[in-house]
């Protein structure tokens, strides 16, 4: 009897809880399903059309900033639309949603190779008509725009452009009387001197993110094999196993083995450690992307750094490996594709808003032809110099190729997984390059090879 009473009371409590749960989630659950995300308030948002934009990783301070430069202006420009910005911190949830028939209307994906996979699965819309309507082809830099094509069709718009540069900790350099090297030979000399002083020459760590090696090999292949050689391999006029590229990779491996890159411990050190070592002066240099400047400014504001193009190899000259940092694509499951296209267009044409966001929040610039660097007055000197560097490189056609934008995705995945094996001498450079070449061959036959500028 007693236990029966207990059970009854349990059931009662459960029933109460269930009703509570149902009530609070009832608003969401029984609406016309299918959509993802809901209105935050009880306002009947069914009258307004709805656009959901996915946004990647933003901590609380960045969210506040984002609200100022994206949410608010969007609301002003589209007062009749309920625009929701949803955060995703990993690609799995997004993929699962899209595979399951849902997902946001506008997706901020990792880059052209990412978009290509979505395109293969017919999960993103082809943007050709919208491009004609809004004249997108003329808005963007050619190289950035063309990288967004897959199978000769446009599937995304480039959200940012970034490049690989060499960072120098100027405090460490000046204290030891070292000068920024201009050529590869000078760099080698410098690294020897740095090592003698028990300082790590070039910081690097990828234990938490193996793929960081693509920063390294993209830089070495573009700068020391040269864009011509890489382009030839991608177009089928040459091979990735050709001497120039092979030498570049061998250089990278040798430098690692000498302890010049990552002090022979890069697999035990995280990205954060890498940045911390650089900022604290444990390392003199680091090869990183222009995106790192934001982190440096945010977490280590007193670090006195400078960024330059990778010291050049004779005969090739200074090269800046470029990449598009992400791509906006329209979900094929979207209910409002036209509206989504309009919103996209707004983002890329509201330049004042964009300049403000760069100036005040360190946002990365869109690869727009019209981009006027003088409008960025007031930002940190170091950042300004870096942007100038990027602009000049584009104007002077010193463009290199980062793997996550310009290489076939299988090839990039293979290289990301096996570069450490190169460093640890578990794999030979020849085998590595030969295997990489097979992916190029496959992409050429499948016609999925990216077009290099």
């Amino acid at each position: 009897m007693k236990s029966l009473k207990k059970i009854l009371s349990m059931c009662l409590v459960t029933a109460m809880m269930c009703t509570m749960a149902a009530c609070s989630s009832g608003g969401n659950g029984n609406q016309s399903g299918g959509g993802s995300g809901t209105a935050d308030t009880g306002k009947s948002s069914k009258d307004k059309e709805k656009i959901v934009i996915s946004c990647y990783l933003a901590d609380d301070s960045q969210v506040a900033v984002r609200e100022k430069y994206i949410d608010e202006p969007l609301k002003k420009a589209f007062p009749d639309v309920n625009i929701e910005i949803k955060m995703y911190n990993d690609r799995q949830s997004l993929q699962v949603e899209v595979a399951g028939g849902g997902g946001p209307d506008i997706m901020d994906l990792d880059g052209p190779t990412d978009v290509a996979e979505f395109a293969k699965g017919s999960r993103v819309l082809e943007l050709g008509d919208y491009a004609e309507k809004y004249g997108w082809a003329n808005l963007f830099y050619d190289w950035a725009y063309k990288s967004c094509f897959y199978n000769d069709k446009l599937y995304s718009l480039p959200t940012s452009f970034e490049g690989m540069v060499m960072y120098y900790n100027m405090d460490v350099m000046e204290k030891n009387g070292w000068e920024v090297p201009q050529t590869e030979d000078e760099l080698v000399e410098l690294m020897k001197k740095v090592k003698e002083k028990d300082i790590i020459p070039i910081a690097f760590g990828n234990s938490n993110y193996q793929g960081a090696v693509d920063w390294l090999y993209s830089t070495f292949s573009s700068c020391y094999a040269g864009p011509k050689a890489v382009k030839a391999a991608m177009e089928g006029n040459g091979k990735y196993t050709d001497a120039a590229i092979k030498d570049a990779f061998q250089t990278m491996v040798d430098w690692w083995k000498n302890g010049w890159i990552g002090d022979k411990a890069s697999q035990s050190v995280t990205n954060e450690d890498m940045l911390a070592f650089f900022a604290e002066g444990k390392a003199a240099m680091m090869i990183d992307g222009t995106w790192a400047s934001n982190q440096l400014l945010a977490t280590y504001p007193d670090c006195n750094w400078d960024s330059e193009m990778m010291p050049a190899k004779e005969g090739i000259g200074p090269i800046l490996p470029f990449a598009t940092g992400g791509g906006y694509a329209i979900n094929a499951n979207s209910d409002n594709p036209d509206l989504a296209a309009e919103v996209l267009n707004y983002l890329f044409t509201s330049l004042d808003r964009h300049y403000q966001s760069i100036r005040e929040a360190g946002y990365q610039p869109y690869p727009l032809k019209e981009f006027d660097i003088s409008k960025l007055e007031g930002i940190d000197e170091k950042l300004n110099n870096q942007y100038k560097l990027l602009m000049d490189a584009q104007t002077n056609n010193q463009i290199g190729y980062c793997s996550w934008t310009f290489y076939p995705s299988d090839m990039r995945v293979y290289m990301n997984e096996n570069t450490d094996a190169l460093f640890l001498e578990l794999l030979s450079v020849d085998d590595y390059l030969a295997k990489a070449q097979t992916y190029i061959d496959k992409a050429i036959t499948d016609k999925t090879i990216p077009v290099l500028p």
Partner: protein
Amino acid sequence: MSSVKKRHVVPYLFIIPAFIIHVSIVTAPAFSTLVMSLFDWNGMGNAKFIGIKNFKEIFQDSIVKLSIMHNIQWLLIFITVPLILGFTVAIIVSQLGRTQMFFRTVYFIPYIISAAVAGKIWTAYMNPYYGLNQVFDKLGWEGLAKVLWLGNPKIALYSVAFVDNWHWWGFILVLFLGALQQVDSTLYEAARVDGASRFQELLHVSIPGIKQTIAFVLIMTIMWSFLTFDYVYIMTNGGPANSTEIMSTYIYKNAFVKYRAGYANALCVIQSGVCVLLYFLQKYISKKGGMEDE
């Protein structure tokens, strides 16, 4: 007449709710996904039927063989260390008086910290520049101080297994403690009356009393060592150079990084298949050995 019928129906009524819930949420959807292992699919649409081509590729894929090897190594570590540790500590702790609560809580803590945070802290401990190696250095143990715990492909797997052990044995402890509490206390009294020492009590009362739990924990550990994912993924992501690649991380990479969902599903078939095989194997062995757990 009706009571006999009732008896036949009642067990089914008891077990059906669990069965139905589970089949509808887990097994049926899982089978639909497993079917996709016969396709060339990138996870989002447009699947191309390719029959058993994925499976043929698996047999030639050296990384699969490597992953299974690593899982086996993992299995060997986990059916020994945490079980022995957990059991020993459970015996000792269960005999404690006032301090029992304190120890039980402390030992359970590693299990309840999320893998993401615990993994991060341990990665920090294993960092060659500011981690435990610094401590070893100061103590003068130069050999240890130079070891790259996560960077050396030869030992990385053991380093991660060590951390997962730290996380896991608290769980085993709780299970053993629960089982020990079920042992009829009168049996202990009877043994003591017979003049048994503490150790004899252990041998003749405790161990037989929790025999089935030990068997259960053993088979669970065996199966789970093929499914483990969290710590390896967080600490080394399968690296360096595939030295910690296990089935789960390889499946994950294929599904979400390489967009080869069809192949990933085929790998899942293999993974689940091995688990099931191990289950039936141990059942056969224990039947032969007389350790009936049914």
